[in-house]
């Protein structure tokens, strides 16, 4: 298994380096064959290609549609030009301008990211902000007077003394470096987190991943990269203008990325260079027709070929899935230190209401390690709501939920997961565009920090998670894309992911719904082992009373938002109230 896994990865890595070397050669020897016009146009296009890469990382990989990269680019360019114009262009200033052009956009990026990505923010909101930022920056430039040159921009400062060929090579080398770094990053274990966020952000949060922080960090880091591109541009072109920061330029970046192929890095690079070059060639003869053509092509592509020309050229879906089959390695469970002897979960007078309608009322419940508590009750009794109140500090409207003695009020799901709670949803919540192994690795992200450069050839999981994979046969399908799994397999995978988090308490919302009899028995056995032998606690929402009777150590009955019974299997199953509720009794 190790052998088959290692070969394609190594070959892909080698291919990447060969490509990079070829690109470097092209860039270094390009000036010997290209005329002045081509050099000029291509230098510009290569700088813009760097921007297209950042758009691709944000939009193609992470799913954040942004028009704002132009603003960070403009800030970087203006920072450089202003420094060189107003302070003077000594070698010291030229050197100093590099960190300034990177840091200022990064700070702005971090601020914008903080504003944009708050818990519960919508995709639209990110797009709105990405429109506002370039508009504000452009207006600031206009109102900057002589400081920014207002509408005519800044011109006439002395940039790097490189000449046409020199700038071509510098821009090209920077582009190759950024593209290479981006490709290595997106193929690495850490890079897959971006795809996971695009796919299913809720699941990421419930795997203990702070998605907001990742998006903010990504925005800030990429703003730095665009700032560097701005530095290059300000030096190479010798002029900066308000249009460089404008939102129309931002939309052009998105168009190049879309036409080249979002989510491929190379596609957007080729898109930016190709369109930039062709535009310069053709816009002299037929300016409006060329724009018309680009616009029409863009519309058609968005509708019929959302993954761009790259998808057409390579059928990259297959090649991207070039199987990485890691070896499963059992890792010892990293037990969290316990404070005092408070119960694992302690709910006191919990309440949840929507307006005047009370969904949960006066729920008091505590769970200790090793217990398998089944939560039963008819539809609408509030079972799923109760689960939500245990995993989202903002959900409850009254009462206290404590985990190991600590109140979770105001905590985000990822904070609560970090405190030892794992939640499996009613409808299997996994990552459709990842493989089984990648999904499991996401579950480990908060425990074993993933590498930013490599794809690990081992996958360390707790023994319990490995057992689940073996029992359900998923251990043989680690390289299978999740989108091809059956309903039951997705349920099992999600269970394995949650168990891989090494939670102390696991919440399961109807884990056996829609499963076959055999699959049910398997999951039942797994749960019994987890609780009885491994000391985990579990709360299980379930309708199948026979199943509940077989595996539970305790049963809690919820009815019309109230906890009506809490006792051993025998006590509950034989009680009159349960018979009444379930046979339709007086409540209908």
């Amino acid at each position, binding site marked *: 298994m190790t052998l088959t896994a290692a070969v394609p990865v190594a070959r892909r890595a080698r291919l990447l380096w060969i490509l990079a070397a070829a690109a470097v050669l092209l860039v270094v020897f390009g000036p010997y064959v290209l005329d002045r016009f081509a050099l000029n146009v291509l230098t510009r296009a290569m700088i813009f290609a760097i921007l297209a890469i950042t758009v691709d990382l944000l939009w193609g990989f992470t799913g954040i549609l942004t028009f704002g990269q132009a603003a960070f680019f403009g800030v970087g360019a203006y920072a450089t030009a202003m420094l060189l114009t107003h302070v003077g262009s000594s070698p010291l200033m030229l050197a100093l301008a590099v960190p300034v052009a990177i840091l200022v956009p990064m700070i702005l990026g971090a601020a914008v990211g903080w504003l944009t990505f708050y818990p519960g*923010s919508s*995709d*639209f909101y990110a797009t709105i902000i990405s429109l*506002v930022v370039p508009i504000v920056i452009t*207006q600031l430039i206009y*109102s900057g007077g002589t400081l920014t040159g207002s509408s005519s921009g800044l011109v006439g400062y002395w940039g790097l003394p490189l000449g046409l060929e020199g700038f071509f090579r510098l821009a090209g080398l920077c582009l190759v470096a950024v593209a290479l770094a981006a490709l290595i990053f997106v193929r690495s274990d850490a890079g897959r987190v971006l795809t996971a966020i695009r796919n299913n952000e809720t699941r990421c949060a419930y795997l203990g991943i702070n998605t907001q922080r990742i998006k903010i960090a990504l925005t800030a880091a990429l703003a730095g990269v665009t700032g560097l591109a701005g530095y290059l541009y300000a030096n190479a072109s010798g002029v900066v203008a308000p249009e460089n920061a404008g939102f129309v330029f931002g939309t052009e970046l998105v168009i190049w990325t879309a036409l080249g192929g979002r989510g491929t890095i190379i596609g957007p690079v080729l898109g930016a260079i190709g369109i930039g070059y062709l535009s310069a060639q053709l816009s002299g003869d037929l300016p409006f027709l060329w724009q018309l053509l680009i*616009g029409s092509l863009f519309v058609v592509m968005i*509708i019929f070929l959302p993954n761009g020309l790259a998808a057409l050229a390579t059928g990259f879906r297959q090649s991207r899935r070039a199987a990485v089959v890691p070896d499963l390695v059992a890792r010892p469970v990293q037990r969290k230190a316990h404070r005092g002897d408070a119960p694992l979960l302690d709910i006191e007078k919990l309440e949840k209401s929507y307006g005047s309608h009370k969904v949960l009322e006066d729920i008091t419940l505590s769970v200790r390690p090793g217990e398998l508590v089944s939560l039963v009750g008819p539809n609408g009794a509030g079972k799923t709501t109760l689960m939500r109140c245990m995993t989202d500090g903002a959900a409850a409207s009254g009462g206290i939920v404590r985990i190991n003695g600590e109140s979770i009020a105001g905590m985000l799901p990822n904070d609560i997961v970090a405190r030892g709670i794992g939640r499996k949803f009613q409808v299997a919540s996994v990552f459709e565009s990842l493989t089984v192994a990648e999904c499991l690795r996401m579950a480990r992200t908060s425990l074993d920090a993933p590498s930013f450069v490599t794809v690990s050839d081992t996958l360390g999981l707790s023994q319990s998670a490995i057992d689940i994979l073996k029992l359900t046969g998923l251990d043989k399908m680690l390289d299978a894309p999740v989108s091809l799994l059956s309903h039951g397999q997705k349920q099992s995978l999600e269970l394995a992911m949650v168990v891989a988090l090494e939670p102390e308490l696991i919440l399961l919302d109807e884990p056996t719904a829609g499963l076959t009899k055999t699959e049910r028995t398997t999951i039942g056995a797994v749960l019994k082992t987890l609780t009885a032998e491994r000391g985990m606690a579990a709360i299980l929402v379930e309708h199948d009373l026979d199943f509940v009777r077989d595996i539970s150590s305790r049963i809690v009955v919820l009815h019309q938002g109230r906890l009506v019974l809490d006792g051993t299997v025998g006590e509950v199953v034989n009680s009159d109230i349960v018979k009444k509720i379930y046979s339709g009794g007086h409540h209908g």
Partner: protein
Amino acid sequence: MTLLLDIATSAAILFIVATGLLTIFGVLKIINFAHGAWLTVGAYCAVAVGQAGLNPWLALPVAFIAGSVLGLLTERFIVRPLYSRPLDAILATWGLGIVIGQLITLGFGRDVQFTANLIPGTMDILGTSYSAYRIFALVAAVVLGLGFSLLMEGTRLGLSARAVIMNETLARGLGLDTAKIRTVTFMIGTGLAGLAGVLLTPLTSVDPTMGVAWLVGSFMLVMVAGQSFGALALACLLLGGAQVIVSTYISPILGGVTVAVLAAVILRISPKGFARA
């Protein structure tokens, strides 16, 4: 007094421009980024009517019809495949906007065009001399707003549209032809955008890219307003008013970004905007 009139009329103009976008966003949950292009189309209808030597008022029905016919084609061929991909719909309509802009450039050239003012001169409002056309815009906005609430509250189409807004699956289950409602809504939205384009002509210069500036402003207002025309009117009044005040007392350039910045802040504090109010 002039300031008050400025605020009221600016809000009215913003309202007129944003209505078409809100109509589409409210029912279809799609942001029509070609909105600016439709404004431009409307404005060029006024130019064309003027060049043909016809009565300038004739531009209004012409623009409405041109807008809705284009809207019909757009909904059918571009927007319909993208209902499940709202972010892609933004991009596709933006691309369409580029195409329309270039077509207009090919037809009319890229130069600034001028049209006959629909209502020239000034009139006296409580002793203040004020542009008669801006007063007319205020009246037009009120008529438009009232007309729309009448359409939504009082007609069968309005009822169906509201049903689609609230619960599209259920509406379809009840036998409403939701596809048709979407098409008609989109046509009304684009028709209104065309109309707004004509109404803008006396206030701004007409050129192929005139729509973009208005697009961003109305997009922000619609995001803040959510799905309600009342909320849109409120948003126009508050944000438009702030814009006038900032432009008058601080700087016209900063005034230009007031709407966008305030909208972003409002949405950050209350993600649903004014829709809850």
